[in-house]
Structures are given as structure tokens and as C-alpha cells.
């Protein structure tokens, strides 16, 4: 009788913890999903061997990015993951070749709306030397649900794991 009550208490505690955990994840993820006025960002992207400057661009979802490009030494590329954009940047030139929707045109500025949130890396798409495959920058469009949810999960794993052990595991070492 007592063992049964103890067992159901434990089970209840575990379900409660699980529910709390899921609520926490949803709650943290939902925070910051409120409306905010979209902003415009004029960004000058400079590419060199083997970096992009700015290395990290942080915007909010719905913001507009107006990108101008410059390369300091050799021909670089700007390929934005998850977006249909591949720019070839010749050095010492104001104009770049922007490839979008299958068409290539010579422009001085590329306008982009950050419609999806998350982390999108931009990579160099024109071989520029030894470290070319690792020439990378990051566009982080907030709110970053994936980061928040996975960070919450990491903490949840720690706390949940410790609680699980506290509630489930018998005190003494199993025979």
C-alpha cells in the first residue's frame, strides 16, 4: 500500500517535471515573438581572405537588409544559406554580380528581407585560396527559437536528469 502510494507520487512528480519542462521550452521560445516594427539595415559587407566583415549580422525577423559589398584582395563570393542569393564580389569594384531566382545581374546593392528566423551562414562561393571552404559569416535572425529551445533543453536535461535520479533510483547500490 505504502509502496504503491510512493510509486504514484514518484510518477506524478515525473509527469509534473515533464510538463514544467515543456512549458519552459515553449515559454522561452514564445517570448520575444511579439510584434516589433521592422527596421532597415544598411550593411557594407567586406570580404577578404578568409573573413567577412561584419562576421555576425544580427537582425529581427521582418527586417530589411540593404547589402553593399566590397572585396579587398581577390574575387570572393557571398552565398547566403537558406536564401536564394549568391553574389560574386570582384575586388576594387562597386558593382557585384548577384544571382537570384536563376538570373544574374550587375548591381551595387542587394536588398533582402529576413523572412525566416534562425541562423543562416554566409559562405564564400568563389575559390579564394586554401581556407576558402571555411570562409564563413553568420546572419542571425531573431527571435532565435532553435537556440532558445535547445539551450532550455540542455538545462532541462541536467535538471530533469538529476530529478529523475533523485526520484527513481533506489538509495543503495543495486545488489
Amino acid at each position, binding site marked *: 500500500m505504502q509502496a504503491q502510494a510512493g510509486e504514484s507520487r514518484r510518477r506524478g512528480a515525473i509527469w509534473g517535471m515533464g510538463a514544467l519542462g515543456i512549458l519552459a521550452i515553449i515559454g522561452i521560445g514564445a517570448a520575444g515573438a511579439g510584434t516589433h516594427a521592422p527596421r532597415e539595415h544598411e550593411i557594407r559587407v567586406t570580404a577578404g581572405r578568409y573573413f567577412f566583415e561584419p562576421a555576425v549580422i544580427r537582425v529581427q525577423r521582418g527586417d530589411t537588409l540593404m547589402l553593399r559589398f*566590397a*572585396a*579587398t584582395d581577390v*574575387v570572393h563570393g557571398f552565398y547566403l544559406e537558406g536564401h536564394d542569393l549568391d553574389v560574386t564580389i570582384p575586388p576594387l*569594384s*562597386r558593382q557585384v554580380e548577384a544571382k537570384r531566382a536563376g538570373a544574374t545581374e550587375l548591381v551595387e546593392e542587394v536588398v533582402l528581407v529576413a523572412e525566416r528566423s534562425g541562423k543562416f551562414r554566409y559562405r564564400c562561393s568563389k575559390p579564394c585560396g586554401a581556407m576558402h571552404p571555411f570562409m564563413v559569416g553568420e546572419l542571425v535572425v531573431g527571435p532565435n527559437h532553435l537556440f532558445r529551445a535547445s539551450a532550455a533543453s540542455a538545462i532541462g536535461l541536467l535538471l530533469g536528469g538529476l530529478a529523475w535520479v533523485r526520484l527513481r533510483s533506489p538509495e543503495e547500490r543495486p545488489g
Partner: protein
Amino acid sequence: MRKSILESLTAGAIAIALVAAVAVPLQVEASRRHSRARGISTIELTGVMGQGVWTDEAVTAGTSWRRNFRRATPVLRVGQTTRLRLASADVAHAFSAPDLGIDPIEVYPGKTVEILVTPREAGKFEYYCTTVCGEPHFGMRGFVEVAPSGAPDGSPPPQRPGANYWLTPEPAPGADGVARGAWLYRQQGCVTCHGDAGAGGVPNPNSMNATVPELADLGRRTFLFTAADADALLAVLASGQPLQGVSEAPAVPLFPVVKRQYLATRELVRDGRRSSRLDVEGPRPPLDMPAWGARLSTDEIDAILAYLLTLGRGNTATVATTPGPHSVEGDIP
């Protein structure tokens, strides 16, 4: 007994396979090149950014560390078709030889481009790289020699200024703007097109002016007719206030005109300009004014302009005009 026969056969087969693994690809490639060469004569050119050369030597994984590849001087024959195979060892290059009718061809690493050339007249025709490919880019030039008999005539090709310009040693940190400007003018490669001390005269085939503009008279074109005028303008620039915001400067005669001209010149250096074709049907001029704003700050551009505005007065710091420590054999001195 059977076992040892099987053993020997296996060992033999493995040995043959290993030798073939190395020898067969080499042989296949050799015969490919041979059959290529048997028809039309072929010249392989590889762009190397570290030196700024198109070389006719083989650049392989095992030799790409070299810093002394020979600059190619391909020899062609009048009326004979030659195949040029262009490859890059590192970054994007371009090959342009307007006087031979070759418009710029982009050459990306990993993709070999082939063109066929049939020269109609003899002479020495300059080739260029027209895609900025690093610091030595502006020196990445050479000559194709076309001879009636197919043999070079032995005379040296024309000289171009600024050999190994990117190796010009930097002045000490405390050097003044004009000295820095003199160094930048050379080290960035301005010298290779605009000449030593802005003398100009470097040919730019099919461009409006036929040669790259001289800069020695930049002062005059900026309405600074005396050395004192130029010094006065430089003092205004050195004061720290952006020139756009300065409405008057009594020390500079015709200041509004000077200001407008100077700002226009600075903008031209910063934003560059594509050379217009003299003959619209003809080849693209190989030399454009690059948009230096992508690499140089406004201060650096001002330093170069300060150097140019004070040319010929002997008050610029001496800048090395001899080739740097990495002189290349067969280079254009």
C-alpha cells in the same frame, strides 16, 4: 602447393595493381596531352597569384609553394592556330590580350579554359590579368610574341614600370602623409599603370585615350598652380575637418573650384571608372580605374593625392625604385 600458388598470384596481382594505381593515371594524362598537342600546338598557362604571373611551367600540388615560376612569353606563328589552355593555381584570374583580339576570359581554379588564337600579324602583344587577384595583380602582365617563323627574335619586350611593386618597404610609422602616399602609390600598384612619378604613357588598347592618364599634372588640373597653393590645400585637409564641410579657406586661391575638383578626384579614386571603348566593336580595354574605396580608407586616398599634388618638388621621401628582394627571372623590370 595450391595455397602457395594462390599466395603468389595474389601478391603479384596486388603489386601490379599498386604500380598501376600510380602509373596508369600518369600515363593516361600524358597520352591525353600528347594527342592534344599533335593536332594544334598547345600552350598551357597557369595563373599564380603569389607572384602575379601567368606561367607556362607546370604548377602542381608538389610545386605550388615555389615563388619563382617563369613568366610566360608564348611564341606564336603568324597565320598558325595555337591553343591556349588557361588554368588557375589558386584564385580567380582572367586572361586578356586585346591586341590579339582576346577579350577577358575568367579562369577559376579547377576549371581549365581553352581558346584558339590565330595571329594575323607579327609583333609583341601584351597580355593582362583583368580580375584583381591579390596584391601582385597589377603586375600580372606579359607579352605574347608572334613571329613569322615561329622562333622568337631575341629582342626584349617593352618595359613596364613598377616591377615587384607590392614588395616596396613600408615607411616608418612616423612618416608624414606625403611619404605614406608615395609608398601607397607604389605598393598598391598605381605605378604599374600611371607610371613612375605619374608619368603615364602605359598603353591601354582600345581605350579613349590610348594610354593611361598621366598624373604628374594633377596639381594643375585641381587648379593648384603653385607649390604654395598645394601646400595650403594639404594644410586644410590635415586640419581634421572633412573637406565637404569646409566652406572657405582663404589660403587657397579659387578654393570652391579647387574643393570641387579635389572631391571629384577623390571620388574617382574611391569609386573607380570603367574605361570606355574607343571602337565599340573592338576589344575591351584591359585597364580600368579600380574602385580603391573597397580597400583604402579616405585618409589613405588623401595621402596618395597629397603625394601626387606635390610631385616634382623633391620633398617626397625617397621610395625604393629598385626591385624588392624577390626579383623574378624574366620579369618585366
